[in-house]
């Protein structure tokens, strides 16, 4: 089982790594290597989940022949990108600038005090222990994992010819319209392993949890300094809810990972190619944004927000030509994943429980109800204040003590990143305004998770502008 699991995770990881290397070849360093590896992890899992779903949709239930078909598909994807890379010279970061980050990003001093590093490993060890224990106590995951993600995976794996029953309206309580990145990845791994062991969703969730920490740390280590990396990762690990959801196998963790990946890739493309942006990295950013939408319905809001933000930020900072170029590359990566999502939504998914109704009367009534606004504002405020069981206070103390640096050497992607989060915040607000479900119940069961989608990216953006410790 372990060998099958390693091969089934290793193959998409290798594919992802190859694609990342085609777009970005930094010099040899541990931090750049870790960043490439974590990005490859998400990219490979995302691609393999799409190909697995398409395989089932076109060829029926997956069996042993998947192991024959999948390598051919992966080689086809590599060949396509090789051919595309040859025709588009700008796919990779420009020659000469590809090996070092643009000026204005990294700090001049880059060292981590030993006590800080030791503390980081201590917190990391506790978080790993916590996640493992939650996983042991909830082998099938928490409520949503059991009732939505892992269950859909079971329909895909156990259903054979009946696998589409997992999208039946009869089990509307299980949200059969939700996208399939997580279920499809689990079912794919079960197909390789040969049986539906609970170890697979456990491993997948742990992978995404710690890949998010590694992505946050390695991206900041590459773009700012190792010290910023460790401090940001400490904030994420100190978020107990993040560790707990990882153990509970919720799809909100991969969702947060793909949002962070998108923004990190936008940052890398700007840092490595200054005003022009590296085309390959922008394509990958689009693909990662697509995977956010392929993970959860909320990901569509992110896609809209980040697309609008890219348009706005590049128009303001670089003009129409720069905007068209950046958006063009971004869409090349985004559209194929959205087409897979569209195919799923049109062919298999029942209407969404929040927006499936065509009756505009109640919709308008909810939109005009001031009590709903008051309730949501109060809930948002409370959530921000008590975020991470007191972590907000620690965060404020930290920011006040350190301050943010002046000057805007890398304005476009930071601007796009903050606009994206602001739009998501507003978007989530109006989802609550419009929801036909009981508002208090909906807020109580989902708000914290929605904030968690944005938290790793928020930390990344804030730590891009926090002053170095030496000059604080």
């Amino acid at each position, binding site marked *: 089982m372990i060998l099958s699991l390693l091969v089934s995770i290793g193959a998409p990881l290798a594919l992802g790594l190859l694609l990342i290397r085609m777009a970005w070849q930094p010099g040899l360093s541990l931090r750049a290597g870790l960043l490439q590896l974590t990005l490859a992890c998400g990219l490979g899992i995302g691609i393999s989940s799409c190909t697995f779903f398409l395989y089932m949709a076109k060829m029926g239930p997956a069996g042993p022949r998947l192991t024959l078909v999948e390598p051919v598909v992966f080689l086809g994807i590599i060949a396509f990108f090789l051919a595309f890379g040859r025709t588009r010279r700008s796919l990779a970061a420009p020659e000469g600038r590809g090996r070092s980050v643009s000026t204005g990003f990294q700090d001049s001093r880059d060292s981590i005090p030993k006590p*800080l590093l030791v*503390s*980081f490993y*201590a*917190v990391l060890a*506790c*978080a790993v*222990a*916590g996640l493992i*224990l*939650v996983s*042991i*106590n*909830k*082998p*099938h995951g928490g*409520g949503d994992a*059991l*009732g939505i993600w*892992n*269950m859909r995976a*079971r*329909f895909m794996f*156990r*259903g*054979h010819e*009946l*696998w589409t*029953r*997992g999208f*039946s309206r*009869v*089990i509307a309580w*299980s949200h059969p319209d939700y996208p399939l990145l997580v279920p499809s990845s689990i079912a794919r791994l079960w197909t390789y392993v040969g049986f539906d062991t609970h170890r697979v969703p456990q491993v997948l969730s742990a992978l995404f949890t710690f890949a998010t920490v590694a992505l946050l740390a390695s991206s900041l280590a590459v773009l700012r300094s190792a010290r910023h990396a460790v*401090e940001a990762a*400490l*904030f994420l*690990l*100190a*978020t*107990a809810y993040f*560790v*707990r959801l990882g153990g509970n196998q919720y799809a909100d963790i991969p969702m947060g990972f793909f949002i962070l990946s998108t923004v990190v890739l936008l940052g890398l493309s700007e840092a490595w190619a200054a005003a022009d942006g590296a085309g390959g990295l922008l394509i990958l950013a689009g693909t990662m944004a697509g995977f956010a939408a392929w993970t959860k319905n909320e990901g569509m809001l992110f896609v809209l927000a980040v697309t609008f933000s890219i348009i706005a930020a590049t128009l303001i900072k670089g003009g129409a030509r720069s905007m068209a170029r950046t958006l063009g590359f971004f869409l090349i990566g985004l559209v194929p994943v959205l087409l897979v999502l569209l195919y799923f939504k049109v062919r298999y998914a029942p209407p969404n429980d929040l927006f499936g109704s065509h009756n505009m009367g109640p919709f308008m009534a909810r939109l005009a109800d001031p009590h709903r606004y008051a309730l949501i504002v109060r809930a948002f405020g409370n959530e921000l204040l008590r975020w*991470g*069981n*007191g*972590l907000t206070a*620690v965060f404020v*103390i*930290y920011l006040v*003590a*350190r301050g943010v640096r002046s000057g805007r050497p890398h304005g476009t992607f930071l601007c796009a990143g903050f606009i994206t989060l602001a739009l998501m915040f507003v978007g989530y607000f109006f989802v609550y305004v419009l929801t036909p479900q009981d508002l208090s119940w909906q807020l109580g069961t989902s708000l914290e998770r929605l904030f968690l989608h944005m938290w790793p990216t928020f930390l990344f953006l804030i730590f891009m502008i926090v002053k170095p*410790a030496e000059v*604080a």
Partner: protein
Amino acid sequence: MNALKLRVYLPLAILVLFGLYANLRIVNKEVDRLHGSGRFEEAVYDARLAPLKAMLPPDAIVGYVTDEGTDVLHRVKYFYLTQYDLCPVLVVRGKNYPYVIGGYYDIDSPRRTETADLVLLKDFGEGIELYRGRQQ
């Protein structure tokens, strides 16, 4: 320690202590749960449903009733577990189906009230029963 160092290191010290506390709380709570009685509940439930699954056709839609007196979280959990274990059989709350599963968390509860009008096909023990439903 001068003021500058204090400004740099104090917030970090608070963050590290907070991080350790937050994660050790999870560890502590989960260790307690590990030693509690609920740990193997799900595995036992899986095994309990196996003979029921063997009796149901894979393309069936079956009803599900439970003891309403049970704590709502347990009700939801066992309903989810039932559907999870019986895939690709579809499980729906209610009695208007050819087959109806009685899933009782509290095996001593007065459950017969919900299934009084149904014919019991098999009692699997430990609170799992299969009935002929209202709809044939």
